[in-house]
């Protein structure tokens, strides 16, 4: 395995969910983008699972 690039780079994060994680990273001077996340498909978990399985066929 060649070395993982992220091991030698500054962390740059996209945060999906709990905002506290993004706030802590920002306080430590890490670049962070907080997503305004809502449950996909209006919160229909079965539809989300279906979407996720379609994604698998990419």
């Amino acid at each position, binding site marked *: 395995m060649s070395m993982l690039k992220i091991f030698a780079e500054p962390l740059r994060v996209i*945060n999906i969910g709990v905002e506290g*994680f993004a706030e802590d990273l920002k306080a430590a001077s890490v670049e962070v983008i907080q997503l*305004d996340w809502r449950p996909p498909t209006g919160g229909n978990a079965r539809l989300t699972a279906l979407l996720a399985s379609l994604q698998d066929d990419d």
Partner: protein
Amino acid sequence: MAIRTEILSSFYQDSVVLMRIASHVRTRPGVREAAAFMGTPSNHGLLEQIGLATAESKEARPNDLILTVDAESDAAAEGALAAAKELLAQRRQVGGSAAEVRPRTLESALRMLPDANLVAISVPGAYAKFEAMKAIKHGLHVFLFSDNVPVQDEIELKTEAVRRGVLCMGPDCGTAYLNGMGVGFTNVAPRGRIGFVAAAGTGLQAVVSRVAALGEGVSHGIGVGGRDLSSEVGGMMTLFALEALADDPSTEAIVIISKPPHPTILPRLEAAIAKIRKPVVACVLGVQAPAQSAATWVDTLDAAADAVVALITKRNLGWGTFSDVSGIRARLARLQAKGPIAPEVFGLYTGGTLAHETHLLLDSLLGHDARHQILDLGDDQYTVGRPHPMIDPQTRTDMILKAGQEKAGVLLVDLVLGRGSHPNPAAPLAAAIRQASAMAAAAGRRLIAVGSVVGTAGDPQDLAGQVAQLEEAGVELLPSNAEAARFAALLVKPELAETLAVEVSR
């Protein structure tokens, strides 16, 4: 009794925000219980479970926010709902004033931060795969905090991650470090030369904190989630992370922290360790060291830190059962002189791995005995609709006060500092312990509090200040959880003194 419900439609908020609001509302006078949940199917189940489901709440959809209060009067219930809405409104204003554009999808976030290298995901488990798979397919590393992710989803995510050469840290990963920077619940430690592979939560936090105290630091800490070494997942991410750390020039030694792997996975782990040309320390709680191994095996978290620092610095840290034997003898004599100690140990833990470590140590020192009870208050059964006890101390302080009313012997506790944890967790813990000890004493019982603190000098809570608060409340603090557990065992079974002391002087 008055139960009032209000539904805020299309008002999504993350669960941590909602649990904080519910905790706050619960402290209002006249409020017996409060809940703030999104109307997902699992949350409807939780509301039923805590007896707060109402005709209105059952109508809420997954994007609708349910506020429910059980109070002693209509006025108290109405006041509590108004307070909850006020807190939500304040949050919206804070969010809006930051002049920060928030993308709605990973793709638009990537247009704003094209060189992003990590996606941190803490959405409800049912949606975790959807978001994590997108990130992995973009070639991004993933920190997956979400729990309740189906094991099949985990297998598919990790298979894809390994195929694409990226990390899938989790699900149910609380702590990670990349290039020295902590993500999630982490203690502030220097960037250093020790790499970690762990489940990961308080076990990793405890070892990293001790490594920092010994003057060393972290290169990377790869969390893999509690199921990685199961037969289903097959150790996919552990093996991937070990290989990555083996190839990383900035990592000079590796520590593996885990619960027992499935028996079919242990040989694969051993084979992977044997290929590594760096010192490896294995802390696999509850597993005897194999007769032959390329790794240095240890059975406690503090020994993992001591062993890896000794290996890379060639220092003899002389780790044993207690770091300060004469100090332990003096403390023991002082506590014994004050009168008899009931032979019971009651552990109230916020850290799961710390609780597990204590459980193993007490079983070996005291034997299986119903009088020794160790509870992990971060376990699902104690966190229904409430934040983790590292964030919200209420569940534990309530149990400590109850212990003060009925128990005698040793009360064993942990305190975990760091980013993500409560801003001043020693204050409520110290107050509860003071009150419990006083209640016990008034009833002619003796309750001795023993504990340890996981934290570093760099943590936001001020390690020295936290330690001082606990000591002022009379807590017998030890330098590590393993030492605290051994000291508790010594207090309730003084004849262990010789055994433990003999081990120390080895």
